């Protein structure tokens, strides 16, 4: 295109097309090429390879358990973020905030239910996913390290649930965490110190609530997201999902 061909009128007429092209950065090509470009040209999809083995699509092989765990994590992040708008990590206010969510806030109950049930479901599905990986022998070389990442993901999932359990500051929360933190104090040598650091004091109180809150809404989700990134990256680098060797 020569410079003389530039015209502001033309630009305005082409505006929608140009904006679309700048976002998708996709040129013309064969159908095959365009489908490939749809995957690798998109930041959110390019963790996927352009082509996958049919075995990974077999519903009866993975049962989608890892994916379901991941989706639950996404739902938890979204609903948790919304809950934060109405929650204060204070022993005076936390329980009242819960009651407000239940009776006052529009869609508050549903939001809280979604967050709670997804959390329970995530623990269950991560465990089931681990069982599927075990029973299909998918932790064998070269996937050993991804299994290790997975074990850490399981631990982070459990810690996320446990820290979240205290936040409503009801009887269930208080005594479950009292019992839980006392189990930690049975650790040899360091036990009492670990409990003290975990609670930020000698008893489950304001400091413990604040600590659990920070871990629950910032530290552990960031850790989980990072580990998930590595987990997915490794699936690709290890050659996609496991499958029978002689096909």
């Amino acid at each position, binding site marked *: 295109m020569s410079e003389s061909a530039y015209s502001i009128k033309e630009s305005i007429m082409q505006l929608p097309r140009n904006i679309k092209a700048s976002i998708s950065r996709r040129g013309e090509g064969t159908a095959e090429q365009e489908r490939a470009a749809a995957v690798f040209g998109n930041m959110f999809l390019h963790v996927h390879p352009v082509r996958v083995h049919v075995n990974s699509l077999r519903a009866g092989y993975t049962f989608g358990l890892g994916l379901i765990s991941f989706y639950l994590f996404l739902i938890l992040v979204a609903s948790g973020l919304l809950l934060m708008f109405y929650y204060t990590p204070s022993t005076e206010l936390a329980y009242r905030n819960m009651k407000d969510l239940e009776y006052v806030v529009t869609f508050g109950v549903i939001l809280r239910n979604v967050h709670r049930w997804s959390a329970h479901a995530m623990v269950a599905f991560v465990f089931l996913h681990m069982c599927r990986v075990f029973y299909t022998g998918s932790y064998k070389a070269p996937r050993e390290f991804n299994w290790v990442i997975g074990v850490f993901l399981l631990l982070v999932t459990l810690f996320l649930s446990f820290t979240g359990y205290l936040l409503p500051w009801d009887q269930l929360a208080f005594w479950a965490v009292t019992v839980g933190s006392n*189990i930690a104090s049975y650790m040899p040598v360091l036990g009492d110190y670990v409990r003290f650091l975990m609670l930020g*004091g000698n008893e489950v109180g304001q*400091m413990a609530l604040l600590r659990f809150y920070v871990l629950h809404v910032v530290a552990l989700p960031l850790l989980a997201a990072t580990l998930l990134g590595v987990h997915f990256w490794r699936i690709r680098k290890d050659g996609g999902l496991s499958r029978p060797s002689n096909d």
Partner: protein
Amino acid sequence: MSSENSTGATILPFRTTDEAVDEERRGFVKKMAVTALTLGVGGAAIQSARFFKPNVLYEPSKAFKVGDLSTFPIGSRIVIEGRGIEIVRERDGMHAISLVCTHLGCLIKPVENDPDIGYMCPCHGSTFAHKGEVQGGPAPKDLPWYEMYMDNTGALVVDTSKVNHKRTKLAV
């Protein structure tokens, strides 16, 4: 350390012994550097972890008044709400016993009118004798007794930071 052949050209051996020594020295320097770095960074990290230990606690004081002698008649067992202790007064003196289960920290309930069992934990069913000894259940330790004294105003004070290991009663 070069040698000469018939054409007079100098042929350098593939690797001189000097270089081998050099390798060793390099290895040593590298090891030292890595060790120093690990110690430095590790030490700094451990020291930084002290940040997480609160230096001031806004918790109720460990030593507190429980009331005058007259609040505790002989033969009474009175639970001090919110402090996790019970004051027991018998003919030969009184003592403050912890009501926090030594198993997992649940609050223990005093059992009334039972000659053997004095306390029972609702969480995992541990039972304790009247003096605090474990009778049954998973509790690993006896219930501690705390130091107790009378201050200059005549009020009884319990200090839960000091365990009365000898289990001596406060004679009154």
